[in-house]
């Protein structure tokens, strides 16, 4: 006679109750009904009011206005655009401007942030104090204040183009913006780029192969001469065969302004300066915290294994620090992208400025335009957080293995 454990009772009602009402049971279900009723009521009020208000103002709801002609100009466009283009094109132009200022800002912010963090951690007392002052001052002033400071005070105080400040005779900065040499593609550009791309792909493949060989069979393969050859030798050979890929046109002062070269509008310069220095202060703190979070013993253990200081840093300290640094760093990149919307204060034609600003005042389609703008930023941040959760999942998997 065997005594088997009795099966637990199915308790279907209990399970349904848990699914519908959470831990609060039927009370939870009742709360949800009340909550849904309130939400429905608010939604009804919003829709009926909006409909009545739009009727009063004679505005047709819907996205049809996107096909209308915009009729205004934008002073920085990455794709061809003229006043006779549609509002949809304005949206794309603004979005591209936002993305370009964010990308440039992210690059500069990362570079400045890492430099400041290293200075703060340096054993030199004076340098660490100087970078501490930088971080404290920048972090305690509003970003808009800094943008306006660069735009209204610093850039406006620069001389006019005739007396512009020359940076090594290549770039010129004045109150009309920054003029830099423009690159002109030559005949050799396409083979050069193709070879460069091939070199990068081949070097990556070599790197993976070498890593695999090291981890699977313990063989150390020396790859750097090949990588060097692929990355520099091949493109150089194409340059010798097909001629130079690019020529630079230097800006020349003619009359009251510059001819040649490409002009970067002062709004872009001010915005990039403010965004990158502001975000750099936050990045510096993140990097410092990340490096300090690696226990001192890790460094000591590395040197007791006979690794050099550089190898210990590269193989032991930095990978652990990066795990702490990367998530908040991405957050800062996202913040920078969102903060670039402050461009509207100085008239840099970003998404908010040209679409939620000028287009909104021209068409009066507040609901559609603001929903599209908010939706775009939401999309960017959701995409970033999706990438970050994949990253987090990979890091956790790496830790578990």
């Amino acid at each position, binding site marked *: 006679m065997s005594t088997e454990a009795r099966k637990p009772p199915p308790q279907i009602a209990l399970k349904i109750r848990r699914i*519908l*009402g*959470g*831990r*609060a049971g039927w009370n*939870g279900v009742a*709360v*949800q009904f009340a*909550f*849904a009723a309130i*939400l429905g*009521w608010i939604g009804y*009020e*919003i829709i*009926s*009011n*909006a409909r*009545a*208000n739009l009727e*009063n103002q004679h505005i047709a709801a819907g996205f049809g206005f996107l096909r209308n002609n915009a009729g205004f100009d934008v002073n920085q466009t990455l794709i061809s655009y003229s006043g006779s283009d549609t509002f949809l094109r304005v949206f794309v132009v603004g979005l591209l401007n936002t993305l370009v200022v964010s990308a440039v800002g992210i690059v500069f912010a990362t570079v400045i942030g890492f430099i400041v963090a290293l200075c703060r951690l*340096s*054993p*030199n*007392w*004076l*340098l660490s104090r*100087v970078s501490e002052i930088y971080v*404290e*001052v920048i*972090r*305690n*002033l*509003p*970003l*808009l*204040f800094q943008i*306006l*400071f660069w735009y*209204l*005070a610093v850039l*406006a*105080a620069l001389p006019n183009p005739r007396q512009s400040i020359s940076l090594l005779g290549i770039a010129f900065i004045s109150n009309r913006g920054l003029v830099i040499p423009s690159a002109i593609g030559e005949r050799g550009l396409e083979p050069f780029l193709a070879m460069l791309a091939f070199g990068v792909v081949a070097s990556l493949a070599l790197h993976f192969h070498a890593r695999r060989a090291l981890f699977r069979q313990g063989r150390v393969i020396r790859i750097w001469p090949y990588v060097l050859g692929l990355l520099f030798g091949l493109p150089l050979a194409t340059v010798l065969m097909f001629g130079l890929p690019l020529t630079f046109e230097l800006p020349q002062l003619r009359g009251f302004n510059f001819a040649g070269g490409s002009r970067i509008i002062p709004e872009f310069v001010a915005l990039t300066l403010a965004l990158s220095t502001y975000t750099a202060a936050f990045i510096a703190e993140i990097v410092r915290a990340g490096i300090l979070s690696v226990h001192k013993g890790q460094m000591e253990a590395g040197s007791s294994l006979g690794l050099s200081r550089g190898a210990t840093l590269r193989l032991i300290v930095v990978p652990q620090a990066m795990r702490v640094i990367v998530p908040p760093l991405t957050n800062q990149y996202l913040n920078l992208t*969102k*903060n670039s*919307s*402050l461009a*509207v*204060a100085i008239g840099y034609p970003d998404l*908010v400025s040209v679409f*939620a600003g000028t287009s*909104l005042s021209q068409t009066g389609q*507040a*609901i559609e335009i*603001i929903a599209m*703008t*908010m939706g775009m*930023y*939401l999309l960017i*941040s*959701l995409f970033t957080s999706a990438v970050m959760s994949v990253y987090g999942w990979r890091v956790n998997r790496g830790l578990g293995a």
Partner: protein
Amino acid sequence: MSDVTSLSFVRRDLLAERPAPVKTTGFIGLMRTRLFNSPTNILLTVVGALLLWFTIVPSVKFLMVDAVWTGQDRTACLPENAGFVVGACWPYIQAKLPQLIYGFYPEAERWRVNVTFLLSAVLLVPLLVPRLPAKGINASLFFVAFPVVAFFLLYGGGIKGFGLSWTAGLLQLFDESIIGAGQALLNLSKTSAIGPLLWSLGSLIMLVGTAISWLIFPLTWLSDHIQGTAQPVWIDFAVTAAIVSLVAFVLGGGVRAGGRALVTSVAVFIGIAVVIQLMGLDRGGLPVVSTNLWGGLLVTLVVSVTGIVTSLPIGIALALGRRSTIPLIRIFSITFIEFWRGVPLITVLFFATYMLPLFLPGNFSVDGLVRALIGIALFTGAYQAENVRGGLAAIPRGQSEAAAALGLSWWKTTSLIVLPQALRHVIPNLVNSFISLFKDTSLVSIVALFDLLGSLRASFSDPKWSTPSTAFTGFAFAGIIYFVFCFGMSRYSLFVEHRLNAHRRN
């Protein structure tokens, strides 16, 4: 024996003094160990010194040495007249100071702003010093009573009724909206394909609406009668005080234990009565100063304090909702939080300025400042929710389990056991959010409100003071104000963090 004595050694003369160890403390020690101990470090020190030289010296020169301190208009600050390269133009700040602090607030009424500033300082300072007692009363005064008083001080105006009339009015509005919705459904049912369903739903809603109107009838009748009397505010006040005190007495435990609740309630109502009498709210109050006249530091502080006061309850509610197990509430909270956190504040302000008026009934116009405040409250609330959630997650489960074992309800567990501990954990994070809120208030200048930065920018365009150094002077002044506030808050947050982590120090 003699062997032993000859082997033993006794030193007969003093050793020569060893040289003192290299000094590693003090200024010399600092220079030796941290500034000039290696060639690289010497180089870095030189770089640092150069950096300081090229930033500190010109700033000091600009702010102090080359500055112009007195003058009537721009001519005093022009290099031709001053005779040297002019730095800061301080007379410009002196002339614009009222505008930078009060905006266009009428000069005769500025004492009201000063009284509000003073009141907030008097209430805030004891709240921030941990050693002082009566934190509960102090906090409720600052977070509940002060905003109301400040509203009547800054905006002005009086009240026509009190709790009873307000409740009756709100309920009537709600009931009308329900009946309107039912009516709309009934109208729709005549043409729609699913007519009968809509008809029955509409009838049901109409029924509920009518039932509510019958339920609230005594209330509306009473409030109508009170409005007809000679002293509506005071009669309404007395009725409200009596009802609320009675309810507090009964809920507080009746004859057995309700005395305390009754005393608290009566004391609160006496306080309210004193405020109403002092400010003459029943007689129309102070003259109304419309918000488009407000400006400068006043708007900055009003926006940030309102944001701080309103965002915290929103944040707590959302954080609790996000941790709730009830599906709809959790999903709503997550969506709400992630939505506001995913968009930039400036689009939120655009939303509040251009979209919100469309969502409200046509006859119901909202002040520009209030719109911005709503946007900022929602935006900051979402961020505060994540802070509070961090604190809630840090409380061990055993705490709420122990509370459940004692038989406490969910509300009591949350409000008495979990939340106090959780909030104490996250005070530094909350203060950090307040700092970023304070900095973010500068964004309201984009939606045509003249905060400190907006007033500053407006003052640049005054031809009376246009000199080459006006912009730099203005930014220096505003920057110092912003820095003092933000730096002060961040130091305070560090201080609180240090105090809270007392048990971790060694």
